[in-house]
């Protein structure tokens, strides 16, 4: 599998505090890549660095290189707007916009490409189907997105990313606070979506990583400790720290 994202010698600083230490990582296309680790391991920072969401954070400094399809995402000629279309992100807390379900999904495509009404409706339907939400909302697309349940709101946010036809989807603990059924629906969608997209997820627990990932990376205090195939990491981790973390001995 070709690498979609390649990270070389990445160092990330918030003022004097280093959040990521000399990280090297390759993320294959069309796979679910999980990054696990306790709090303050640099995982959220890493995800936010991949679509340059940290750019405007005061006091940050980034060294090293991140390549998307062999092209540096921090190169001067890169359009950040286009990068964020290609690399979408879903956060831990659902963030529906204060508008209808339809408008939430159509918001991005309208801004980006001003599609005609029919094409837009098709895009919204496809995105909602891909996020496994269509059947639940198809008859009430005009209602406020805020009135959906937490699990539905989170799938709406996933659909909003999908409507922009991205290549990479970043998910930062997308199922925290969701019930097992909503979690299962999101996991099912992700397993289906990886055929078309590259998915990088910070799972809300190690069991979720074990269930859905193709590859798993374990980070601790900004360092990549271990990275490997799911079965390998969860059955015979190479590093003692990985083993202690996934077996619940710390973290």
């Amino acid at each position: 599998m070709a690498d979609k994202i390649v990270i070389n010698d990445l160092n990330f600083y918030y003022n004097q505090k280093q959040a990521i230490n000399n990280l090297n990582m390759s993320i294959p296309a069309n796979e679910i890549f999980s990054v696990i680790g306790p709090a303050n391991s640099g995982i959220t920072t890493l995800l936010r660095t991949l679509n340059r969401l940290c750019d405007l954070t005061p006091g940050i400094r980034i060294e090293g290189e991140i390549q998307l399809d062999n092209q540096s995402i921090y190169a001067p000629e890169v359009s950040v707007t286009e990068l964020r279309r290609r690399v979408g992100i879903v956060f831990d807390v659902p963030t529906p916009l204060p508008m209808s379900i339809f408008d939430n999904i159509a918001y991005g495509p309208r801004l980006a490409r001003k599609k005609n009404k029919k094409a837009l409706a098709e895009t919204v339907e496809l995105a909602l189907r891909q996020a496994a939400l269509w059947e639940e909302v198809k008859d009430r697309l005009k209602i406020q997105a805020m009135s959906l349940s937490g699990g539905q709101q989170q799938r709406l946010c996933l659909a909003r990313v999908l409507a922009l036809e991205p290549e990479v989807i970043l998910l930062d603990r997308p199922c925290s606070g969701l019930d097992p059924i909503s979690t299962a629906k999101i996991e099912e969608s992700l397993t289906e979506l990886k055929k078309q997209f590259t998915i990088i997820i910070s799972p809300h627990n190690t069991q979720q990583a074990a269930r859905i990932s193709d590859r798993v990376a374990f980070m601790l205090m900004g360092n990549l400790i271990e990275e490997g195939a799911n079965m390998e990491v969860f059955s015979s981790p190479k590093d003692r720290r990985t083993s202690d973390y996934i077996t619940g001995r710390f973290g």
Partner: protein
Amino acid sequence: MSVRSKFDEQLEMLNISLIEMGEIVEKAIKDATKALVDKNVELAKKTVEFDNEIDDKEKEIERLCLKIILQQQPVANDLRLVSSVLKIITDLERIGDHAADISEITLLLADCRYIKELTHIPMMAEETMKMVTKSIDAFVKKDLELAKEVIVYDDIVDNLFIVVKEELTELIKENAANTDQAMDLIMVAKYFERIGDHATNIAEWVVFSLTGLHKDSRIM
């Protein structure tokens, strides 16, 4: 108590139960051998009945393993440990069955004179008991070298079986009247040889639990 300490407590309980099962299985082999050599009918009957106790112990450990899987969803070394125990108890239970099988033959032969003095069969019993003890020891002490020692040891038991088989074949050739008893004794020897195989299996699961490798290949 933290969730992890409860988990550690359950794993400790698993260790203790496995040691207990190992001990009762060893006792079964020992009693089956003594009953055979001494033609002790009472002891042979007890050994046959004793098999139920081994079966109960297997069920008890099985339940504990399933409870741990359900409650703790173990991964990494914990997962290897729990899955190894599930496999090990199956082998221990089969060893218990063979001890009972041997005692059933003892009961059949109780009224006959043995066609030869039993020398190599008790040796097989001795060696297989050592294998079982060592394999369980290796598990509890997480001793990879000891587990590997057991695997190599199996050859000794296999060679003893060949010796017994050759002796019994000679006795049949000498006198066809020996055939019935020779067949029974070859069964006894075969059961001991199988016990050695099961002990080897246990040792192989110990290696898996410690290294993730089963018979030199990565199975997960």
